[in-house]
Every structure is written in C-alpha cells, then in structure tokens.
C-alpha cells in the first residue's frame, strides 16, 4: 500500500515535470500541443475507488493549471477524464475480464488494448480541454483539427513512455 503510494507519487511528479518543463515549452505550432500528464490518470490501479480517482484527477489538473496560468481549464478536462475512466474500462474489457489487483498497463493487457484505452481517454480529455480553451463555437472545425492532431501526438508520446517503462 505504502509502496504503491510512493510509486504513484513519483510517477505524478515525473509526469508533471515532463509536462511543465518539456511539453509545455515545445510550442510546435498552435495545432499540436501534447498533454502527456493525463497518463497519470491512465496508470492508476484498476481497483482505485472512484471518488479517489476523481480527486486525484482534480489535483493533477489543478497542478498543471498552476504552472500554465489557466485556472480551471485543465482541472475541468482532467476531472472529466477521471469520471469516464471506469466506463471506458468497462466498454473495452477483455473477454475474460480484468485480473484482480492489476494495473492498466501494456504489459498486462497488451498493446492494442492499451492503445484503445489511451486513445479514448485522451480524446475525451483533449476535446474538453480545447473547446474550453476557445470557449466559443466559432471555428468549430479548426478546434476539432487541433483536438485530433494533439490527441495523435499525446497518444504517441504516452505509448513511447509506456514502452520505455516496460523496457525497464
């Protein structure tokens, strides 16, 4: 228990630092803004109580908000991602269900499963985030393009980090 709290705190700090120090500074173009910190929500254990998941999501979003000077934007999108995670897990559950006490990781459930899982949650998160950012429906399709491109990049980076984690 203590061990896993320590492990997830470390993952949390690493992901936040990665986001704030590296990805927030990439500014590749207005269309591609990868947000990899959402990976923290993806990695939390299967059996985590929903209320804790929601509160951790809020805390993650708020931390990113503090660093990027955008109060509420990331919090709101991340809480939404935390809220839909149990539903996404239910929809894409493997035929013989999930193993007890397992982490939703690539090692346990394979590449395709992890890709679907990541893609769905990142897509919901980014959709909420980018529409909240512009806060208007003018340029609807341009914002959608930003959502899709950024989702592709975020998913790619998350998969790379996950592959690296597996390699260790």
């Amino acid at each position, binding site marked *: 228990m203590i061990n896993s709290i320590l492990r997830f705190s470390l993952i949390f700090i690493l992901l936040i630092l990665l986001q704030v120090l590296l990805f927030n500074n990439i500014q590749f173009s207005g269309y591609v803004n990868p947000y990899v910190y959402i990976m923290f929500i993806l990695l939390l254990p299967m059996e985590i109580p929903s209320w804790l998941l929601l509160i951790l999501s809020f805390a993650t979003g708020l931390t990113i908000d503090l*660093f990027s000077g955008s109060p509420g934007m990331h919090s*709101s999108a991340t809480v939404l991602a935390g809220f839909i995670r149990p539903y996404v897990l239910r929809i894409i559950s493997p035929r013989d269900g999930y193993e007890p006490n397992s982490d939703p990781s690539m090692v346990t459930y394979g590449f395709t499963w992890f890709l679907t899982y990541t893609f769905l949650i990142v897509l919901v998160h980014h959709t909420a985030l980018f529409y909240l950012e512009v806060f208007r429906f003018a340029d609807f399709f341009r914002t959608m393009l930003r959502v899709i491109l950024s989702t592709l990049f975020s998913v790619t980076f998350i998969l790379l980090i996950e592959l690296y984690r597996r390699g260790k």
Partner: protein
Amino acid sequence: MRSLLNFLARYNNLIIFLVLEGIAIYLLATGNNYHNGRFVNGVRGLTRGIEERINNTRTYLSLREINEALATENVALRNNMAKLVKKGNSAFTSVTDSIYKQQYTHTSAEVINNSTNRQKNFFTLNKGSRQGIKLDMAVTSGNDVAGVIVGCSENYSVAMSLLNLDFKLSARIKSNGYFGSLSWDGRSYRYAVLSDIPQHVTVNVGDTIETTGYSAIFPEGVVIGTVSDYDKVGGDFYKIIVSMKTDFRRLHFVDIIGNMKKTEEIELEKQFQ
C-alpha cells in the same frame, strides 16, 4: 431521510464529479480574467521561481540573437541622438519637462514566461507595480506591438499577448491613414487580421500597418507589421492579413509604455458619452 442517504450513496461518484467540475468551471469563469489579479498575485507566486529558472536557460541559449538586436537598437538610438544634437543648436532648446512635454514613459522588462500555442496567450514580465507598472500599459518589442498589461503584482505583471482571441487594437494603413480593427484569428502566430477597412481604399501587399493611438494605450505609429494578403469579404470591407513584425516566439526584452495623459484624455471623453 433514508431515501436521501440511499440516493447519495448510489450517486456519490456523480455528485463528487459534479462538485469538482463545478469548482473547475468556477475557477475558469472567474480566474481566467486576469483583471481581477487575485490569481496573478496569489497562486502563481508558487510557480514563478521555476518559471524564472526555465527562462534563464532559454535566455542563455539565445544570447547571440539578443545581442544582435541590442546592437541594432543601439545604432538606431545613436542615429536619433545625432539628429537631436543638431536640433539642439537651434534657437529653442529642449528642456526636459516632465509635466508638460513628456507624454509617454518607457520601462524595459524581461519576459519570464510566454506562450504562443494557445488560443488565449499571455506572457509574464519581471516588473510590477513597485517598478511603476500599471494596468493597461502598452508592451512593445523594439518598436513593434507585443501586448497590453492586464495584471500586476508587486514585482511581476502579466500581459495579454497580441496572440489572444480577446485582443483588439485600433490600427491603420500607414500610407493612406485609413484605420480599422486588428485582432488575432487564432491561426498562425505570425499573422493577424485587420478588418473594417472599406473596399474603395487601395491596399498593396507590403504596406506598413501601425497603431493609431486612438485607444490611449499605444502611442501613435507603433509598427504592427506589413500587409501580406488581402481579400474582399461581404460587400463593404477588406479582410487584410497582416504579417506581424514581432516574433512572439523570441520575445525576450520588451518596453512597457505608459501614457501619462491617458486619464486626462479618458476623463474628457467621458463627458461627451
């Protein structure tokens, strides 16, 4: 009572979700407005140390370009000075008179946090109210428009970048003086859009676009950029794409311009509204 408790137990996730989402939306609705300053003063202080450190690294990496820019500016200033010395020989000598003559104050500041990839971009400067920075002062880079101060704490201030969907600026075509409204359309960090120029006006690619000074924020004649493309939209107006002179990705040192006569102008204008 029991059914209420049952209800709460059954939907507790949804309730927590709605409460947290409510807090987030509340922050989004109230905190995003940099005018209230609370967020700028309070919570962002926590992250500022890190921001400054990141910026130090970034500045170090681009020292060469900064030096070049400074050298060019020095030459320009020296040239101006040479002209002024010549003028000084005339019958009327200029006296530094802060009450009647000087309208604009200039303060130099360093950008310590900046973004160009969002739809509503802001940048943070390392000078604040203690150094005489106030709300609604103009921010320029060299002699080109960069933004407007929207939040001040004691030692820091936050400026709304021209790259912000909420930014509106009165601008004109230098060659013929027709003015319109300049804003950013959220597409590229290099281009802005000038609208409200009537179609009977001749516009040429390469024309300089500058500020009008009507807003009492920017002085007159601050360069924004040049016309890169134009298009007729609707029946009456042009949509002019302006290639901005300021490179927002390389914003390091900026000038903050305060208008000392702004209050006077606004007070007078108020009487006729």
